[in-house]
């Protein structure tokens, strides 16, 4: 069971490293979107500080979402997904591996980069810490929920935008608790409550999502 998960993670990481462009572009997308806001909203530091948690979290959401269409699409197009579905073990295990690899490649770098961008918005140190923590806790849920959407829209024309339509509403709780934790810290209220809710969300999503995605993939493969 662990063997197959590890094999899938290993393969996906190897592929991601072969085309580093992907990881780098997701990060740059994150940076650019975050930087667009001061341009659109204007440079007042007070305003920006209030904005920061929301903007950083929304940008993380969007960056994750943009990398989702390819989560299964490459494997689908070249027939690897079929082979995974035909392997003599449940497809949910392979999907678990893929979700985990996706998080390592997309969520983790975002979380590590976020404090640097937070500095640009003049966030205090404890808020930066909570920001990183909330992203570390919340992004796995984004990968998990996103996998369901990616599986449901697999192979559909216009899949990318349809995918965001399906996934963004489901991301909203993660966004509220994630940004809420940072907001609460900035306001001096302490973000522990939000963070523990976020952790609960992530656990639920990771337990449930691979199997829902596997079911959706089987439908797509018919």
């Amino acid at each position, binding site marked *: 069971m662990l063997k197959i998960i590890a094999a899938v993670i290993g393969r996906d990481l190897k*592929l991601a490293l072969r085309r580093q462009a992907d990881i780098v572009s997701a990060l740059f997308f994150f940076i650019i979107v975050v930087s667009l806001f001061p341009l659109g909203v204007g440079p007042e530091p007070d305003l920006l500080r209030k904005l920061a948690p929301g903007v950083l979290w929304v940008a993380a959401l969007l960056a994750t979402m943009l990398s989702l269409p390819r989560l299964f699409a490459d494997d689908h197009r*070249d027939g*690897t997904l079929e082979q995974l579905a*035909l392997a*003599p*073990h449940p497809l949910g295990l392979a999907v678990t591996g893929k979700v985990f690899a996706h998080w390592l490649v997309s969520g983790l770098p975002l979380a590590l980069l976020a404090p640097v961008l937070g500095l640009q918005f003049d966030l205090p140190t404890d808020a930066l810490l909570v920001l990183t923590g909330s992203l570390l806790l919340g992004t796995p849920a984004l990968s998990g929920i996103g996998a369901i959407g990616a599986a449901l829209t697999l192979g559909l024309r216009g899949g990318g935008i349809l995918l965001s339509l399906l996934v963004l509403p489901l991301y909203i709780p993660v966004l509220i608790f994630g940004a809420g934790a940072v907001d609460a810290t900035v306001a001096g209220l302490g973000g522990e409550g939000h963070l523990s809710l976020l952790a609960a969300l992530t656990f639920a999503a990771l337990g449930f999502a691979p199997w829902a995605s596997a079911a959706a993939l089987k439908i797509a493969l*018919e």
Partner: protein
Amino acid sequence: MLAAEQLACVRGERRLFANVGFRLDGGELLYLQGRNGAGKTSLLRMLIGLLPPEAGQILWRGQDIHEQIDEYRAELCYLGHHNAIKEELTPLENLLLSARLADETLSEDDALDALEQVGLAGREDLACKYLSQGQKRRVALARLVKERRALWVLDEPFVALDVAAVAWLAGIISGHLQRGGLAVMTTHQPVDIPAGTVRELRLG
């Protein structure tokens, strides 16, 4: 060993076929024929358990495949329209990985040997995206060289191959049949399989 009874297939809203049945034993090849759109690919996807049949059932060693799907799949090897290879990886990596993901054991020596047999010696370490269409197909086919699973299901395996490669693949399939394996295959090109019993099934 493999039997299908009264299969029916509906795709979209069209009934492609109904009441299709066959039996296939060790050493036999089922050669699936039919005009474009007759439902050959659809039938193969039913046989490998990806497409639930509209009616009828598929038996493997006397039992419905959906009741023993993991065991069945451990004896099944499928090769579809797509090559199931990753363009960024080398032929060697592809071969080793696809074995790992299918829960097979394949040593590196065996993999190198297989690649040599399909005429890719010297290119084991070149990323697959630099190969031509036919060479990519050969990487996919290299899986079959060391494949010892009982049932092979091949959808148009000869597409994109040149004459030499076609003959080689026919030989590989013969070997499989001689070892007592079963195979189901479609192709629009007439190809000679030197050994084994060939049964034909025509759709539509």
